């Protein structure tokens, strides 16, 4: 009888330990998803600025037809509700380049800077860029904790059993890492 009680206690302790590891893994996975959804929100905020950018460009730099066409095309693409996260990240990289080109143009065409919408885009974009950067850091931090849990013993055994795999970091695109040559933007396309 005593041995049954001891075995039951050991089983309960072991089970609690397993449940603890499992819950920890789930919490980390949810943290990754939450932080990823934040990035999504801020990417959408940045996409929302594209119509304003098109309006300013149409008003001030009509001669830059290639730029305006590119901006309109991007605006149409991001308005598609069925975009996957990969599509969004790809479009976000293009949006980054578009805004870089936009501000470069504003130096060549100073009349752009006098349009009130331009200042609005400038201030909103600065905050959104900060928030995207923070969300990326939060996501990568969550990913690090999640990946550590998935790879380290003993939680890696539970992770293997429930099918959790190592996730990729959110890295800045190659285009964002390089110093952008604004004159060549869109030229290759």
């Amino acid at each position, binding site marked *: 009888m005593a041995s049954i009680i001891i075995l039951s206690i050991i089983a309960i302790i072991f089970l609690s330990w397993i449940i603890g590891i499992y819950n920890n893994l789930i919490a980390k996975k949810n*943290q990754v998803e*939450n*932080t990823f959804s*934040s990035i999504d929100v801020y990417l959408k905020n940045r996409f929302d600025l594209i119509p304003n950018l098109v309006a300013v460009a149409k008003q001030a730099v009509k001669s830059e037809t290639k730029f305006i066409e590119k901006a309109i095309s991007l605006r149409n693409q991001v308005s598609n509700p069925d975009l996957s996260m990969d599509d969004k990240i790809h479009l976000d990289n293009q949006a980054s380049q578009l805004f870089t080109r936009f501000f470069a143009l504003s130096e060549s065409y100073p009349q752009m800077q006098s349009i009130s919408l331009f200042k609005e885009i400038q201030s909103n974009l600065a*905050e959104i860029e*900060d*928030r995207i*950067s*923070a*969300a990326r*850091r*939060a996501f*990568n*931090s*969550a990913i690090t*904790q999640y990946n550590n849990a998935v790879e380290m013993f003993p939680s890696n055994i539970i992770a293997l059993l429930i099918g959790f795999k190592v996730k990729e970091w959110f890295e800045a695109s190659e285009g964002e890492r390089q110093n952008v040559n604004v004159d060549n933007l869109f030229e290759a396309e």
Partner: protein
Amino acid sequence: MNNNDKLYNLYLQLEPTIAELEEARKSALIVPVLLGAVVCLLFTYNLLSWILKGTSHFSIFTLIFWLPLFSLLAFVIFQLVFTICYYFSSPKEKYEKAFKETIISSLIENLLIDSPQYFPEEFLDFFTIKNSCIWKEFNNYSRSKSNYRFDRGIYWLKDHNGVRSGLTPHIYYDGSDLISGKNFKCSQLHISPGSGLSNYTFKSLFIIIDLPKNTNTAFGTSNNISDNKILLDNPEFNELFPVYAEDITEAFYILPSNLLERMVNFVHKTGRKFDFSVVDDKFYIAIPIPWGDGERQLLEPPLFKSLFDYSIYEEYLADLDLILGIVEDLKLA
């Protein structure tokens, strides 16, 4: 011109004022020293007479036997009388007030960027500190100001008739040296939560900085704000500061990587670990300051040192650098 040169020029300008304050310092010391010496002499004389009365053979050995005890007693009595007389004497209060209003004010106005205002006898409001959520000792206290009465450094919880009751919890809350800048405020605080709570007592340099970012989040080093401990992307920072937050992304937004690095550097530079919190658009920092016997107090006038000793002004400059350096270091203002 760097701050050290500015300090030297200011010292030269303030010399006439320093001479007056030096006189005030000496007069603040005279009465307590004399009174201490007289009481000490009377006491030892009486004690000696009493001992000699009971001793049939006075010898040099008797004196040598009692000398260490006499010296110790005399020292203790002198200290006691001196401290009582000094702390309750009006020349001391006048000297301290005049020193802060002239010397410290001049240092702050002339050496600090944007010339913040200095109020020697004022301090940050208790309810502002409570809003920081840094100390869970205040959780049991009402958030409403109408439930309190501030009287002689103590917040008393009012009863039904608006009269304080000895049994209700109270908080001893005192402070000094309020500095009010363009977008920050700081002061020294001395807080002891009252009966029914822990006997936690702390003296702290408390700084409130207006955040330059729009946010309505809450996070900080106290699990009073949230149970969710988060890890930021700086391992050294994570070792020094546990951060609790519900919204991890907002915490990363308010604390960019370079700010984390500056906070770590601040701890390394000063050896002072601090608590912080962000609530809505305010960044709160509480740095514990030493206040035990023998510890030099921040911005307090010297007592046993001549005011012509230039090193004391360098120490004040270091104090101010510590306070304003935090705001500058954190680049929040």
